[in-house]
């Protein structure tokens, strides 16, 4: 229990550090006033501009020192108010934008990870149990193919085959469709993200499984008459999942990056595209909010991975 309290404290400290760094870099490297008002921000001599500048400074607390602004922002952020956008109108507020865009990306990455595991586990078990066959060599080639083809190329190929030629998936994402339809629309983009992940998981699982299958306890299981299939899934799989679980957590971050490309290609207005638009317009509150949320998700997921270790192996618990 003490261990988990420590871990949780570390997670929170890490989140604070991330937020400070992001907040500081956004404010120090950029010029918020310029981003809000444009060229007039440097002109304090014209009285009417000075009025605008002072009004903006008051509204965005730019007249206050950086630490105070950080604390104000953090207080707002944890209570769910992510502030006002720097865009000319300031509308819609960041919170609204995040609420609209983020769920699509989260669904996309979630579906991609589920698909990746659903593909990788049977694939890995199969290839570990028949490690020398010809089909297995083909599967190795396929795995490396999925890993080495860039996301956008894979997106083009899958789109061409499944959407254009076979017509199994819609050509464009339709944000106004029903919940279930929107999820089916996400399937192809999710598959694009999932295949490279699945290939990596499969390779890791295969290697670990081959090692586990050499263990003495597998011999015991065989000698007591456990059927082959049960040996693979009940005895060998669980102790072989450590690498996969570790990379699963790390890969989630990579998938958010990949989501950006995939969202753009499939025309999904998600968080990935939102963050790119915001960076191009130097709309820092949006960038800050999204970076914070993604970082939180990443850290929490890896915390869950830590918990998973102890579920997978009782020896970690004691």
């Amino acid at each position: 229990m003490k261990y988990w309290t420590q871990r949780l404290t570390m997670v929170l400290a890490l989140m604070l550090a991330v937020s400070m760094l992001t907040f500081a870099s956004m404010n120090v490297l950029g010029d918020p006033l310029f981003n809000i008002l444009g060229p007039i921000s440097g002109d304090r001599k014209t009285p009417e501009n000075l009025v605008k500048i002072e009004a903006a400074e008051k509204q965005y607390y730019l007249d206050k020192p950086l630490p105070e602004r950080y604390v104000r922002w953090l207080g707002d952020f944890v209570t769910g108010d992510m502030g006002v956008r720097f865009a000319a109108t300031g509308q819609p507020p960041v919170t609204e934008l995040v609420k609209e865009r983020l769920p699509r990306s989260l669904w996309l990455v979630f579906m991609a990870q589920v698909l990746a595991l659903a593909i990788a586990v049977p694939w890995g078990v199969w290839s570990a149990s028949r490690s020398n066959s010809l089909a297995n060599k083909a599967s190795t080639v396929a795995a490396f193919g999925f890993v080495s083809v860039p996301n956008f190329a894979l997106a083009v190929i899958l789109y061409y085959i499944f959407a254009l030629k076979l017509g199994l998936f819609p050509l464009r994402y339709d944000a106004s469709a029903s919940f279930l339809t929107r999820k089916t629309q996400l399937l192809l983009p999710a598959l694009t993200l999932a295949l490279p992940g699945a290939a990596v998981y499969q390779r890791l699982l295969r290697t670990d499984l081959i090692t586990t299958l050499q263990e003495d306890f597998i011999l015991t299981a065989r000698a007591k008459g456990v059927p082959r299939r049960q040996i693979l899934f009940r005895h060998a799989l669980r102790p072989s999942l450590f690498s996969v679980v570790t990379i699963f957590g790390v890969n989630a971050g990579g998938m958010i990056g990949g989501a950006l490309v995939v969202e753009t290609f499939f025309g999904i207005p998600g968080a990935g595209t939102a963050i790119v638009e915001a960076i191009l317009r130097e709309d820092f509150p949006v960038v800050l909010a999204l970076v914070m949320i993604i970082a939180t998700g990443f850290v929490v997921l890896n915390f869950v991975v830590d918990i998973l270790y102890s579920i997978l192996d009782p020896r970690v618990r004691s």
Partner: protein
Amino acid sequence: MTDAPLLNVSNYSVGFKTERGLARAVDGVSFTIGAGETLGIVGESGSGKSVLNRSIMGLIASSRQIETGSVLFDGSEMVNQDRQNFWGNRIGMIFQDPMTSLNPVMKVGKQVAEPLRQHLGMSKRQAIERTIELFTNVGIPSPAQRTKQYPHELSGGMRQRVMIAIALAAEPEFLIADEPTTALDVTVQKYILDLLNRLQAEHGMAMTLITHDLGIARGRTDQVLVMYGGRVMEHAPTEELFTHTRHPYTEALLASIPRLDHKKHARLTPIPGAPPNIVEPPPGCRFSPRCKYAQARCVQSSPTVDGAEHRYACFFPVGTDAGAEALASNRAAGETATGLKMSHFEVDA
């Protein structure tokens, strides 16, 4: 003993294809075991004793393995057959290291319940009840709580008891105990061996006890097979083997272990050299390079395992005139026919 032995192994060989040629891990081994009988298989590391048993059971899953000869188990031929139906069900097996032979991420109760459900078709509840009975029977205290523990929460002796419970769960007719006590400390060793003997008597089970400890073989077996380099060197009823040792290798093994009736500070006599190369071995007796009786004949041709009750493969057996002459001529020459200095053996003389 019944008319037909439970296990009848004749001229059984196991080879492995390697890049350097065929490795003859087991070479022309024959023996029989009747119901309720115990066969001790003795030999140093690499003598082929473990491969012999795993191959008989068909547990070696290698396409490089080649089996020849005959192994009849209860009348059915096992060589080159799929033996999966026998595993756990009719033949049980206990391994050397209880630390690594249990699944570390599965509760021990479940590991015992598996063969019960698999072979006896028990329900989950029946299997749990039976597991607790089995645990009681192998001497595991507070068995109900133990079933819910993981292997790492148990001591080595407890784990080996769990292994025995697993092996005996489906009440096999034949048990292979592959160095069951090698990894345990001496006090636990005795307990485990006594337990095996008691359970064997209770179930009328046949057993092979693989060991490199001649002391264990002496007290707890009906017959002993001494292996070297994949071949049978000597095979006899246990008392006969120890009282009328014929093979120089058996004699050397006996001389290399400490005994209570040795005089104080007596040196042990190690066997010089290392186990033989089993890939493309030279002609002649496999033990000749390390044998103090070795003569020119031993290098040229290989003795066959001869005899009825007491079988051995040696031209110059211990305790015979031929053997005494061979030893005397080697002593006079100062070395054996294979160039081994006799001074190696005369440490304490």
